């Protein structure tokens, strides 16, 4: 014997549950950190600032560093989202030294996020970290 079809009340509750479930997983794009978008922006800025064959000169890199970091923050702020940004840029010489970096965060994992962009040239490594925290 078949089960009786779900009553109209049950159907409606299931529909509303599904709808509210979808609604609660809806991420407001104006408040959520979008990794891909940010990666594209950082890539553009780094590649336009540092030419592929440049050598590591300690006096030159402070300039590059400042440019990359400032332009990234300006471009991200211009996206006009309600997100606070933190951008760090590390440039160091290729010398055989090893390096390890870790980040731990205490945030709202639904809306906040981070990206890292790495760029290599013949003589140096460039690492750009961007953290976005929604307000």
């Amino acid at each position: 014997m078949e089960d009786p079809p779900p009553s109209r009340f049950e159907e409606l509750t299931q529909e509303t549950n599904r709808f509210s479930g979808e609604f609660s997983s809806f991420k407001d794009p104006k408040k959520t950190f979008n990794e891909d978008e940010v990666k594209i922006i950082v890539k553009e800025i780094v590649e336009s600032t540092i030419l592929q064959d440049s050598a590591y000169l300690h006096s030159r890199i402070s300039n590059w560093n400042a440019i990359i970091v400032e332009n990234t923050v300006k471009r991200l702020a211009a996206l006009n989202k309600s997100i606070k940004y933190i951008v760090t840029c590390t440039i160091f010489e290729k010398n055989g030294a090893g390096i390890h970096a870790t980040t731990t965060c205490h945030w709202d994992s639904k809306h906040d996020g981070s990206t890292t962009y790495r760029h290599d040239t013949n003589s140096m490594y460039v690492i750009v970290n961007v953290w976005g925290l929604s307000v």
Partner: protein
Amino acid sequence: MEIENPPVNLSTVSTSMTSTDSLLSLSNGNNFVIQSQNGPGTDSLLDSSLQLGAAYERRDSLQFGAAYERRDSVDSTSFSLRPSFKQKFRAPMVKNVIRTIASQRLNNALYDKDQAPGWANEISREIKQKLIELDLKQYKYVVNVTIMENKAAGARIQLACSWDMDTDNVAYETFKNDSIVCVIMAFGVYFY
């Protein structure tokens, strides 16, 4: 809570000039007390009719207005837009925390490429834990730890942020010994 007969005698009522939130509570049966939190303000006894009127107004807006603005990660009864000085992320204080933890963990350590990621991980977790224990309300934390071998390579780290300078801050510290250079940055960002 229902307020049927407004009380005739009002005992001490204090209001704060600068607070952005207030709690209404009925206590001791007939006494009407308006409490406000997180505000440096002056206590003053206002005209009793004014208080009553204001109380009813505020109560309605709290019930209906605040409900729609409530967010999951914030306690709706003690929400504030600006932290007081003690509740702010204070860089020198956090710097001390970072310094102690780094020197404890890395004193006399030799760079080892297999162990270094583990150290970085542990240090950042420990610092994050200490920050959470500071019990500052509504703050989000990001802790970044970089461990480099000290081989006389040139390096430079630069940082820029788009945030609220009044409430958000960074504490950073460099730890060096003969074989390791460790840079630790701890950010505190206020969540409105």
